[in-house]
């Protein structure tokens, strides 16, 4: 029952796939977070009325399936003749997707800082930037970090969808092995275990921080 045709080089192939998953995730999360912080600040500073177009645009990224977004992004880059490889396209689409969610998190974090605290900072003669840097940022980070960790894990899991653009990441790699070795359950279980091992500890840390840092205690 425990004999398998899986060889070490196949496992290396899977590891390569996992590396691709992590690479796509890291690039997208970093870019998406920077964009998200920027958009979040714009949304808070401009108010609901003036930032309505931005809100709508970001809402589209959250209401359309990621698979469709990836296909559209890929079609658009070939229409515009940008000649991007699948990796770039995937990262760009995933970054925008991440940014859409991150904006909400950042906005929630900034809104959680009481306006009186910010006014106090300004009354002490701090500039807008100093207020943002020394008052809002530390307080907002406490509120936002647990959900940001959740978002990162979400993007890690959603990055499985880039297989549709032909990128060989963890799930696609295991699918290729399944096609060759015809042992779907065993290989998929390895694949799931890898996802689980990456995701579970970080999710636990997020849950711990959420409990530890909850604002009303």
């Amino acid at each position: 029952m425990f004999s398998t045709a899986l060889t070490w080089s196949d496992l290396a192939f899977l590891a390569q796939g996992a590396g691709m998953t992590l690479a796509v995730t890291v690039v997208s999360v970093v870019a998406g977070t920077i964009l998200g912080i920027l958009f979040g600040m714009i949304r808070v500073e401009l108010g609901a009325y003036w930032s309505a177009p931005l809100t709508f645009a970001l809402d589209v990224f959250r209401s359309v399936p990621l698979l469709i977004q990836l296909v559209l992004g890929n079609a658009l880059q070939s229409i515009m003749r940008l000649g991007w490889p699948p990796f770039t396209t995937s990262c760009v689409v995933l970054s925008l997707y991440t940014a859409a969610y991150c904006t909400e998190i950042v906005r929630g974090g900034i809104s959680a800082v009481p306006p009186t605290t910010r006014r106090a900072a300004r009354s002490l003669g701090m500039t807008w930037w100093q207020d943002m840097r020394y008052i809002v940022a530390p307080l907002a980070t406490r509120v936002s970090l647990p959900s940001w960790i959740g978002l990162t894990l979400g993007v890690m899991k959603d990055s499985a969808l880039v297989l549709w653009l032909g990128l060989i990441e963890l799930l696609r790699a295991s699918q290729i092995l399944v096609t060759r070795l015809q042992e779907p359950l065993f290989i998929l279980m390895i694949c799931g275990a890898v996802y689980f091992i990456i995701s579970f500890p970080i999710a636990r840390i997020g849950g711990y921080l959420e409990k530890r840092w909850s604002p009303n205690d």
Partner: protein
Amino acid sequence: MFNYTFHWNQAFKALPHMLDGALVTLQIALMSMIVGLACAIGLTLFRLSGNRILNGFATAWVEIARNTPALFQIYMAHFGLGNFGIHLTPFTALLVGIAFNNAGYLAENFRGALKAIPDTQTRAGRSLGMSSMQAFRLIVLPQMLRVAFLPATNQMVWAVLMTSLGVTVGMNTDLAGVTQELNARSFRTFEFFALAAVIYYVIAKVLTLAARALAWRMFRY
């Protein structure tokens, strides 16, 4: 600017097909949500039961559902179950995968909602002579559903978006599948998928608004 001629007409001509697909999408999402809700309530009861085996089973389900990609879960239902001689059609595999995912996330929602209901409520119910099942069903469950309603509607929107993953296991009757078939025939990728995106967006928005209206109607005192 683009050096590409858009053929929106083809996409609009295919709109009726795509709307049929949208119906199938909604159907799968709804069914997966109903199955998911039932399983989630079961999992919540398992976790409350104090039985270590049941509790372990529920925890394992929730953690696997939450810590692996939805696409992986659908693959597992489609390819993985084949090892046991269970061969699901893409429709059933998609349904099973999404329902499994929904159940995990909903059970976690329910756990959060349960924490919001004080223990004293159950005890008050028991003091009035209710059995523990009655106290759960008549006192705790309605309040829990009230707290968990909005997160659950989010999950419903997620379920709609997740149905698009069916296309990767060969599903060709839902919105993404229909779009992909049309695309394979004419290679008007951008036009077809842009239209599909609009339909998905409308479905998501209508569901969100409907849920809000429903919550406003049902949950006012």
